[in-house]
Structure formats: C-alpha cells, structure tokens
C-alpha cells in the first residue's frame, strides 16, 4: 500500500493550515475548531496545538459525531455513535470544521446539519488533510493539506497517532 505522506509531511501540512486559519481570520478571536469523528478530532487537536505554539492561545476544540445526520443511514450496519462535545456555544463563533479526507462532500453536509442543531455560528470554514476529489455536492474546503487526485477504486487511508498509533497517509486500491 503506497504511502503518500510521511509523518513529517502531515505535521508540516497541519502547521501550514494552522497559519492559514489564523491569517485568514486575523487572529484567534471567536475561533473554534470542530473535529469530525473519528480522525477529524485528533487533527483538530493537532492544529490547535500548532496555533498555540505561535499565538500562545489554545483555541477551543469540539468533537462532532455525524452518525445521526447521514443521508445513507438505512444502509449502514451497526452504526456506532461517538460523543458530540462542544467546549463553547457555537453561536456567533467562527467554526473551522476539520476532517481527514474530503471526498463526496456528504460527511460535511451532515456535519453542517448537525452543527445547525447546536447553534448558529457566524461562519463555518472547512479544513481537510486530504482532498481526493469526486464531489457529489457543492462543497469545497477552505484549507487543504494536500490535493490527491484519485480514481474511484482507490481508498485514501489517513492514520493519526492518537487513534492508530502511527501518522501518515496511504492510498489503497480496492480493486472493486
């Protein structure tokens, strides 16, 4: 399974995203990072840590589970729900949604719906480590670690230290 990003590549991409977020929002005021379960959460934590190193401010990090908002629920076996936890009220905050891979856009669509039940952010931005293309909805990312054009029979695997015990990105051909 070919690796396309080494641990250092991931760290550098997250560091750049951290700078871009602060630059675009002119600081960290009213900023909340919200990771989408599962791997968006450690990525959001990592971006918050990077921001802390140069801004000396810990931006609040929330966790969002979108299991109850999917549009393919009837076809998913044994769906596990993770906790949804917001450290602050999202209303009037600038929320940066964080996920590992942007693909069809349906996860992000579900995340936007889930968030609208939790509050009314002033703005929502999207940060992803990998954009692999093949969108099925009019959704784009504001911050992208790396664009990796893929074919539909490939899978992009992101692994995070906190979840998988290693960090990196791999491409797998499913052969289907």
């Amino acid at each position, binding site marked *: 399974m070919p690796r396309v990003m080494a641990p250092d590549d991931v760290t550098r991409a997250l560091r750049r995203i951290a700078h871009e977020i602060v630059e675009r929002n002119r600081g960290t005021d009213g900023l909340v990072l919200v990771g989408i379960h599962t791997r968006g959460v450690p990525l959001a934590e990592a971006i918050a840590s990077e921001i802390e190193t140069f801004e000396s401010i810990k931006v609040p990090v929330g966790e969002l589970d979108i299991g*109850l908002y999917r549009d393919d629920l009837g076809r998913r*076996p044994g*769906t596990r729900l993770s*906790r949804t936890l917001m450290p602050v009220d999202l209303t009037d905050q600038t929320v940066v949604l964080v996920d590992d891979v942007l693909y069809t856009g349906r996860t992000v669509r579900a995340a936007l719906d*889930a968030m609208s039940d*939790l509050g009314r952010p002033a703005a929502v931005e999207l940060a992803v480590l990998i954009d692999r293309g093949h969108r099925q909805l009019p959704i784009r990312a504001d911050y992208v670690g790396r664009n990796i054009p893929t074919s539909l029979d490939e899978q992009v695997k992101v692994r995070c230290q906190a979840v998988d015990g290693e960090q990196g990105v791999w491409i797998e051909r499913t052969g289907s």
Partner: protein
Amino acid sequence: MIRHLLTTEDMGREELEDLLQLADEFVAVLGRDIPKVPALRGATVSTVFFEPSTRTRLSFEKAAKALSADVMTFNPATSAATKGESLKDTVLTLRAMGADLLVVRHAAAGAPWQVAEWVDVPVVNGGDGAHQHPTQALLDALTLRQRFGKLDGLRIGIVGDIRHSRVARSDIFAFNSLGAAVTLVGPSTLMPGDLTGWPVTVVSDLDAALPELDVVYLLRIQLERGGATVFPSLPEYVRRFGINRERFARLHAEAVVMHPGPMNRGVEITPDVADDPRSLVLDQVRNGVAVRMAVLFRLLVDGEAAYG
C-alpha cells in the same frame, strides 16, 4: 434478517451494553436546545397498544419524533377492533399503510412474537401480559448505570407482585446479564409458581433484606391483574412490603429506590420516599425516551454502504 426486540431473556451482555451506550448518546441529544435529530427521517413507527398505557406509548412516540420518524398511533378503543377486526388484520393493515416498525402491547403473553411472524418489519414488545417488557428493563439498567457506573456487583431487591409482573421478568434477566445479583422479595402468593432457571434468590422478609440492598425496586400492585385477590388485604401488604420513611432509613446511604410507574402512592411507596432525591422514578421516565430511541435506531438502521 429482520431483527426484533421481544424479550430480555436471550439478550447477552454485549447486546445490552451496545444499546445502553447508544442510549447514552441519545441522553445527550435530549439535553440539547434542539432535542431532535434527522436519523429516522422518512421512517414510520406505529404504536399498537391493546392495553391502556400512557407513559410507555408516549415515551415510544416521543422517541420516534426525536429521531424525526413519523408516528401512527393505533387506538383499539376507537378503531375497527371494536368491530371485531383481528390482531392479524390490524397489523397487516398498519404495515400496508407504511409502518416500518411496530411497537406492540397486548394482554396476551406472546402476542408480539405472533405479530413478528405476520409482518416483514421489526417488532418491539411494548409489554405482553405478565411476560416481558424489554424496554423497561433497558431504561432501568440505564438509570442504574448512570447512578452507579455499572451494574456489576449491585444487589438489587425487586419487591412485590413478581407473579404478575412483566417488568420483573424483564429486569431479572437484564440485571443478571449485566452482573447484578437479584433478590425477589414478596409474599409467596405473589411469587411465580416455578422459578426454575431464574437467576434469583427469594426472601419473604423485606426488613431483614433492606440493609443488604443497593437498589430497592418496587413493583406496582396491579389491582387490574387480580393483585387484590392474592393477598389478604391492602393494609396488610403495605404493612409488610410498603416502603416508608422508616424502612427507607434502614437502607445504606447510597442505596436508591425505583418504581416503574404508575405509582400507587401510599401503597408500594409513601409520598415522602417517592419524592426523595434517592428515588430515581423520574430519571427512569427520562431515560425511557433515550433507550427507546436507541432501540428504534438499532432496529431501523441496518444494511451496508460506502461513505466518504
């Protein structure tokens, strides 16, 4: 394969814990400003209650609505059942109208199993005679888990009319699977004739048992199921098995009191004990909605799909 929820007797620890963990997430959803999620949009849940019920039916309907499902309420008193329509025709009609899941309550033990054979959608037992009431056991287990962290090692005394109680039958097997030790307390006339295979110990002296219990679970005296005919008198029952302030004081400081409702205040429980902070009655009601959401979600959400 269509899955149903009919009894706690065959539910293992893993299945119970899966539902309780799922219910935890729904407790969180119900605590939000907007306590509603779109998970079951487009699905229709039908409540088919041939016995009077307020809380269980409303709880299922609230659970369905909090998941954005539509609800069809079948009320036999105002339906064709009064014209002699059979149970089979009733449920087939509801299914033909688009019900995706049926919650069935019936005075006849086993009725939900029969319904499950007739329809091609999940069936949830909402209480069948004196037999089973599995969502009651789930909400009781959830309530105890919230209070004590886990059920392992908990000493639970179920007090009263065990013989006529589907709540007791459901709780005993669920509590046992989750690691609790169940003691049945009541007069012999209110005990089932045959306790073979039941993971319980039986005592008849409540006062002696109280100091050893972490949970006192009071069953309702079901006057409508002949409760009054099997013990000498109501005052006699209250004297021996009713929980009052004095008996409550014999429990250790962390012990709690539960009741499936509706309570007969002054019979199983005195009002001051019912309203004590260590009475979990309203927590049980609250948790009922969350566990029913978990059950509806698990039974209606199944299949396979890729997602990205």
